[in-house]
């Protein structure tokens, strides 16, 4: 079977695009022995996720993946057997012409955004006929049968369970980050866009009887934290008010970010990549969805909530919905957080149950490999 795959990633903003494609590339190479080349137009974004890489990205092999800078003037290269354009990016024209010129046309896939909306199953896997007889298809990740599933490495859940059942592993990992929580402290990770609801949440956490340690990988939310505390962080990158302590963490590699999610009691995540990783952590999560024009993100948020909350009691479901709505700017975050506390045990149980349900489905990499295999069989 042909085994060379090219993945194209255009970094629009943040680290979601490159995060997803880098994970996918690594998994395809490691678990399926595929020869994978990842093209990224903003090397700086990749270098932040993978400090081991060296600029300029000129074909360095990292974790089994050839990572290449996608320059404005695209060089002549040999076309792969499977070509993935991630998140609806447009392939370089020169590359498309080379695809069309190939005797055996490559399989061209547009890997789309993640959504829980019902229309996804009706669009997943549909063709998108192109000039030059190029076979192109749309591939949608998703949470239900009839979609492409979610990114999940083969050993991810086993690793997570081993980590979560070994307190010393957790303690060692946190200590490595300079985090030493007291015994009864609730750990929460925070990865978010700028968020007007943050202040209400911080106020609730500071006033809570249970101490909270909020762990924040450095990023766009720092400015709002500083405003709320009204001061620069202390030399240990910490702030404290009432029963809330906030600690800034360095920007984490993927593997370390997973461990952070596994270590925390609640995870606040954003966009697509960290949102999926938090689901595999099996802990309650708070999703800051990417805001879209005309409020289109609300439909997407509610579509996910409808699926997720179907496994909750009406009270817990209502608490989850209020909390997520408030976190995304509809409602009072302080009140929603306080109201959700009696439901935390139910939300924890649901998080683990949801993780198990999702793990029963083929993961995204496997679904892509199968799709390619079936396409080859049909074409033969």
């Amino acid at each position, binding site marked *: 079977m042909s085994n060379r795959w090219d993945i194209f990633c255009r970094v*629009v903003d943040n680290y979601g695009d490159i995060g997803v494609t880098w994970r996918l590339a690594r998994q395809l190479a490691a678990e399926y022995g595929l020869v994978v080349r990842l093209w990224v137009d903003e090397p700086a974004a990749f270098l932040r996720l993978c400090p081991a890489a060296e600029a300029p990205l000129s074909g360095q092999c990292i974790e089994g993946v050839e990572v290449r800078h996608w320059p404005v003037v695209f060089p002549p290269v040999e076309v792969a057997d499977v070509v993935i354009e991630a*998140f*609806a990016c447009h392939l370089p024209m020169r590359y498309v012409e080379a695809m069309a010129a190939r005797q055996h046309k490559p399989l061209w896939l*547009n890997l*789309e*955004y*993640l*959504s829980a*909306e019902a*229309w996804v199953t*009706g*669009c997943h896997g*549909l*063709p*998108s*006929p*192109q*000039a*030059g*007889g190029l076979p192109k298809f*749309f591939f949608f990740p998703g949470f239900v049968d009839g979609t492409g599933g979610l990114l999940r490495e083969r050993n991810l859940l086993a690793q997570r369970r081993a980590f979560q059942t070994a307190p010393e592993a957790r303690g060692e990992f946190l200590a490595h980050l300079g985090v030493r929580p007291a015994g009864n402290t609730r750990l929460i990770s925070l990865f978010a866009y700028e968020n007007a609801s943050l202040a209400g949440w911080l106020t609730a956490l500071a006033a809570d009887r249970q101490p909270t340690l909020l762990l924040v990988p450095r990023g766009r939310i720092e400015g709002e934290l500083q405003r709320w505390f009204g001061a620069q962080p202390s030399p240990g990158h910490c702030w404290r008010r009432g029963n809330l302590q906030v600690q800034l963490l360095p920007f984490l590699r993927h593997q370390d970010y997973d461990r952070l999610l596994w270590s925390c009691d609640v995870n606040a995540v954003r966009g*697509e990549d960290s949102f999926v990783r938090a689901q595999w952590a099996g802990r309650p999560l708070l999703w800051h969805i*990417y805001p*879209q*024009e*005309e409020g*289109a993100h609300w439909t*997407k948020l509610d579509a996910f909530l409808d699926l997720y909350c179907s496994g909750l009691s009406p009270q817990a479901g209502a608490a989850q919905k209020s909390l997520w709505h408030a976190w995304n700017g509809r409602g009072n975050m302080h009140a929603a957080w306080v109201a959700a506390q009696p439901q935390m045990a139910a939300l924890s149980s649901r998080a683990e149950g949801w993780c198990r349900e999702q793990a029963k489905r083929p993961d995204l990499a496997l679904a892509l490999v199968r799709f390619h295999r079936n396409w080859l069989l049909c074409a033969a």
Partner: protein
Amino acid sequence: MKTAQEMKANSVALIDGHPWLVQKAEFTKSGRNSAIVKMKLKNLVNGSKTETVYKADDKMEPVILDRKEVTLSYINGEDYVFMDPEFNSYELRAEDLESVLPFIEEGMTDICEAVFFDGKVISVDLPTTIVRQITYTENSARGDTSGKVMKPAKLRNGTEVKVADFCEIDDWIEIDTRDGSYKNRTQAPTA
């Protein structure tokens, strides 16, 4: 060239050298302000049909089509016969009219446009606004008069549309045929 988003139902695109009739086009926001268009296409050469997806900003090559004013003459089972002012008749199957079928009913007087490719009629476009009569709807549940509260109603051909809560059986309403939405209550059309 047009974008996929601009290709509406009953337009024809040349895809890889073949003319395809867009029988249905559904626009959806996929993520982070990008969008897709799901299309039901019919190959005008061999009659084959397919469902496809395009990015909303994908470029497509439109085919310029001939159009002629027609009115519905009669319906015979799955066959729909239209007539132009010179009394030439054009017969179409229900499957050729998929995008407008919910709003076609016996006795309608709307001035439509027959769409031709290579001299052959391939579909019919309805006016953007049509007037239809409600044959059934529940009584107003909340007494709302603002027009913001909606309820289901049936038209003469069985099509169900959402109408303002204050609409009643036998009322005439205006419908936007681009999306099937209710516009307002109106007078019966004059013959």
